[in-house]
């Protein structure tokens, strides 16, 4: 058993090997087999991870922090060296379990989903490569190793978003993701350099707890923490670096599920937890506390994204904004020092969000690549398994007990509430509001897609046959997906139900499994006192009530699906709504008024005002500057020898002029 701790390198190596095999021989292996080979490698990795988990569990104390150096990757002389090493500790083992576990399910799902794609094997190579990079990211024993994985997942994400690059929007989205992530990466790199220049090492072992950082000023450590957080913001799509994620949905749906919902976007949360010592240390000092920034960025993202999600009509974009919102929760938790709660939500979120995404993919597949929810409705009859599992996911994300999302979200809100002072209460209030909106928009989605009137007939009639999708169902009705797609849905559905039991908020008997398990990795993190049992209980009740209110509102608005004219009530402005007032849905309309007024405007502002103009403008601005500077240089490069000689003379003049100042 013990040996598995040293053999941990097998876990990323297997999918990497799979990627190489599929990339080289994919065409020859043929369609379904290439997918199964890819799935088998990541599946074996999962089994291996389980063994690693047991091996680590059998250790105690120091043994739960095992560093295995594969080889000395980069050795200067002296004490500087970078090991190609892996760190096995509770945090990394938690990460690999869920990365490989969910990864396997999504690989399996893709076998069905990508059926018939001309670049079938290429897709699986990328997917495997992604898994390998992600595993290096979480298993790395130093910031540098993590950064390597970080870049790897960034590259794979770029390749996969623009996988269907024939679609212009996909190519653009890929580029956008790439650019935005580079901004974050730059922060990460600067953070690393600052850490290295102060401590002379990048090994995580050195930064176990905040006591290890004494000797460096609080300001410096805060700067390090914030720079690392900039990296985390890029990868985890936090405001204002969130813009790439909704567009990233142009990629194939399994990619959205695996990379842009379940795993890669959580890398930021992982990094903040891994580097928690810096955030904790910065909290001790007076002045800016890095954690405060993290918490508020998270809170703003959670609330902002939730409002935006309300008015989306694309089934995947709703989920994309929802992902933003949920990631915001995780950062909120990390910001107040409740890393366990953040990681807990990360795991449960991975379950139910992967489920929801795969469910949406199944819907899209069944609807012959239709993504507009306004053209759906009543689908549960046609796709019973997808419908049922999607509903489980909905209950989980809406925070209905005992589904997974309830426990983790409740813990985050409670920890925020008790984290102290007015700020804790304010964060809690923002979280509650976001929870209300979450329940609402998810209810809206479920009803628009699976219940209410069937609105797909017309659209399917003209669409069918053009999407190149070979299908037996000639009538064009939606159909249930094949077993390779529904099986992962069922497994994830089950996990979304029971996932919450990983860590229950009861200390007597001690059921906080995850919290206890992660403790060695988060040494020295602030312990948030949970307050009296009754107040904790009241908070939970409040969270449930908020969730139910959100669901109730959504239900009343959408219980019949969309009205016949196909207009979403949320979008309808005040005037046209006057008629509906007579229908005794006064409450609905009041809310709809609110939502369609300020909330919609705010949402529009977030979605378009900031996105399109400011940030796209900035990105384009950089591009234009480079282009213009390049054109300037090109004009100087006239091709004439004499002009080049003039360039040399100008350089001579410059140097002589400078040197002259030295001589005097």
């Amino acid at each position, binding site marked *: 058993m013990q040996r598995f701790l040293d053999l941990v390198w097998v876990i990323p190596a297997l999918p990497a090997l799979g990627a190489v095999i599929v990339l080289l021989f994919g065409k020859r292996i043929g369609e379904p087999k290439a997918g199964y080979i890819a799935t088998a490698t990541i599946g074996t990795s999962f089994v291996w991870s389980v063994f690693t988990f047991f091996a680590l569990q059998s250790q105690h104390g120091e043994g739960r922090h095992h560093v295995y150096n594969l*080889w*000395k*990757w*980069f*050795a*200067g*002389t*002296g*004490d*500087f060296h970078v090991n190609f090493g892996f760190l096995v500790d509770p945090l990394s083992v938690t990460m690999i379990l869920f990365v490989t576990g969910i990864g396997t399910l999504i690989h399996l799902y893709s076998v069905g989903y990508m059926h018939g794609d001309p670049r079938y094997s290429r897709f699986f190579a990328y997917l495997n490569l992604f898994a390998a990079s992600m595993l290096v990211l979480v298993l790395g024993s130093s910031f540098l190793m993590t950064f*390597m994985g970080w*870049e*790897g997942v960034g590259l794979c994400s770029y390749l996969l978003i623009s996988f269907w*690059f*024939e679609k212009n929007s996909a*190519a653009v989205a890929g580029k956008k993701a790439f650019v935005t992530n*580079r901004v974050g*990466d*730059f922060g990460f*790199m*600067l953070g690393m*350099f600052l850490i*290295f*220049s102060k401590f*002379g090492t990048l090994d995580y072992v050195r930064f176990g707890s905040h006591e290890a950082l004494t000797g460096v000023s609080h300001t410096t450590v805060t700067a390090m923490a914030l720079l690392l957080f900039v990296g985390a913001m890029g990868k985890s799509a936090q405001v204002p670096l969130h813009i790439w994620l909704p567009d990233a949905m142009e990629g194939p749906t399994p990619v959205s599920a695996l990379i842009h919902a379940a795993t890669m976007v959580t890398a930021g949360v992982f990094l903040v937890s891994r580097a928690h010592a810096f955030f904790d240390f910065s909290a001790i000092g007076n002045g800016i506390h890095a954690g405060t920034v993290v918490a508020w960025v998270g809170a703003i993202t959670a609330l902002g994204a939730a409002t935006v999600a309300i008015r989306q009509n694309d089934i995947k974009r709703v989920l994309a904004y929802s992902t933003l919102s949920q990631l915001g929760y995780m950062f909120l938790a990390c910001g107040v020092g409740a890393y366990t709660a953040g990681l807990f939500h990360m795991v449960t979120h991975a379950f139910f969000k992967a489920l929801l995404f795969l469910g949406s993919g199944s819907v899209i597949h069944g609807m012959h690549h239709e993504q507009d929810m306004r053209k759906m409705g009543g689908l549960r009859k046609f796709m019973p398994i997808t419908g049922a599992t999607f509903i489980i996911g909905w209950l989980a994300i809406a925070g209905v007990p005992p589904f997974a999302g309830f426990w983790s979200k409740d813990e985050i809100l409670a920890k925020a509430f008790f984290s102290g002072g007015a700020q804790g209460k304010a964060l809690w209030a923002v979280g509650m509001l976001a929870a209300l909106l979450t329940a609402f928009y998810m209810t809206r989605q479920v009803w628009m897609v699976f219940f209410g009137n069937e609105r797909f007939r017309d659209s399917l009639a003209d669409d069918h046959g053009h999407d190149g999708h070979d299908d037996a169902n000639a009538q064009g009705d939606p159909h249930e997906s094949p077993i390779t797609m529904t099986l992962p849905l069922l497994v994830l559905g089950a996990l979304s139900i029971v996932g919450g039991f990983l860590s229950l908020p009861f200390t007597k008997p001690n059921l906080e499994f995850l919290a206890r398990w992660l403790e060695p990795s988060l040494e020295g993190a602030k312990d948030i006192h949970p307050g009296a049992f009754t107040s904790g209980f009241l908070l939970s009740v409040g969270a449930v009530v908020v969730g139910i209110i959100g669901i109730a509102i959504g239900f009343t608005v959408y219980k019949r699906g969309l009205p016949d004219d196909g207009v979403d009530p949320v979008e309808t402005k005040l005037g046209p709504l006057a008629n509906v007032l007579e229908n005794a849905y006064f409450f609905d309309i009041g809310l709809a008024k609110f939502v369609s007024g300020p909330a919609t405007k705010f949402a529009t502002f977030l979605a378009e005002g900031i996105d399109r103009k400011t940030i796209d403008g900035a990105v384009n601005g950089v591009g234009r500057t*480079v*282009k213009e*500077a*390049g*054109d300037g*240089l*090109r004009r*100087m*490069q006239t*091709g004439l*020898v004499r*002009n*080049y*000689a003039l*360039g*040399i003379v*100008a*350089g*001579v003049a*410059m*140097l*002589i002029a*400078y*040197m*002259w100042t*030295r*001589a005097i």
Partner: protein
Amino acid sequence: MNPVLFAVLNTELEKPRIDWPIIAPVVALFVTALVIVLLRAILRTQPKLVYQLSIAAAFVGLVTSGAFVGNEWRIIHRSGIFQTFSGAIAVDGMTVFVQAIVLIATALGVLLALGYLRREGLETPEYLVLLLLSATGMLVMAHANDLVLVFVALEVFSIALYILAAFDRRRAESQEAGLKYFVLGAFSSAIFLYGIALTYGATGSTSLTEIATQLGVVDPKAHTGLLVAGFALLIVGLGFKVSAAPFHMWTPDVYEGSPTPVTAFMASATKVAAFAAFLRIFAGAFAQASDDWRPAIYVLAVLSLLVGTIAAAIQSDVKRMLAYSSIAHAGYILIGLQVANAGSKRNELPGTAASLFYLLVYALMALGAFGVVQSINHRGETNHAITDYKQLSKRQPLLAALLTLFLLAQAGVPFTGGFIAKLSIFRSAVDAGQYQLAIAGMLAAVIGAFVYLRLVVTMYATGQDDDPDAANEPRIKLDVGSRIALTITASAIIVLGVLPNWFLDIAHQATQLLTR
């Protein structure tokens, strides 16, 4: 008889001892070149045979020379570093390191050229002679411990390169490249020589060792205008050869016009040799005056990064794009030179070692990238616009994959030598407290990634207007030479990325053995 002349004639002149083992590598190459010229003259009626023989001779010469370089390394390890030929030649770790890179680059350059010369109908022994003579000059450059010898070595390899650039007489571009390189090269050499004269006037010697001693005595604040003007002009001359901005303007035109294997050789070996002189003169002899020249190198480094990266981003020709990127690479190496022996609390990887390692990696990356470009070119050096690389992955999957590797290495992607090289440079800059330079380098690397990825994406992306028969285009049959050369460069780049320790150690040892 004039009494003075009489006295001179009667004085026993101090004859420099000829240290044969030390100059053996140089002699080996030079003799090989002469043998080929003789063969050409003797067997005038059988040009085919002469060509075959000269190829064989070239490899024998290169291998022999390589063996002698190995012997030098052994000598240094046995008896330490020393100077010979009255101090005009230095024998130290850097010499051996640089000579090894030059010989490898030359051998790969010959391998790459064989198939190209056949395709273009240029199969003449003169090509090999010029290549070997140029390499001879570079080997001397690695030794040169006297400014006059530096100048002679510089001219020896440059003059051979002028002809090589213009070697394809049928192509106007090749001739234009030769003329531009020649006129500007001669101009910059004259400036360099004037720099030598001024330095000589200010210090009273052209020997680097004596200059260093002299500078150690003089108060750095009292440097005369003569001396600092000498510094400036020397920087210009060397900056031209390494194509640092603002002395870079010849680079894109010459790289584009020259026959591609010449470009590959020029980009790799020339830069190595010129940087060797740069390091030996500035980081070595002028170390005491580093306050004078360091800010100038700083500006040159930043300008090169800026110009190289930005101009590469808008190029529509692959050879020009690679030329601009070589300017950016010069910028990174200049960072290493800038911090070459800056005071540092943890001086574990001085800039000199980082620069040497970068040069090794760069030489391989450049040879590989230009090697692929050369194979993709059609007869007459066409087909190197970026648009010609569309869908290359379908048409020529192997070449596309190789080019991708070389481009990713140049972008500094982990697990390629390029990553370690950039990391070493940045690290030495950070160690020396030059944070701005490290950040400038990183920014350039970020923009640079776009440059390289743009080409990679072009090769792999497909669009509506694609040629459906692309996959059926006949695969380019690589000749044996290119195949060997590309295999060596590609595997070396991966080895340098995965197991760089040994090479970093060597680079480091090489600089520890630097004579002062």
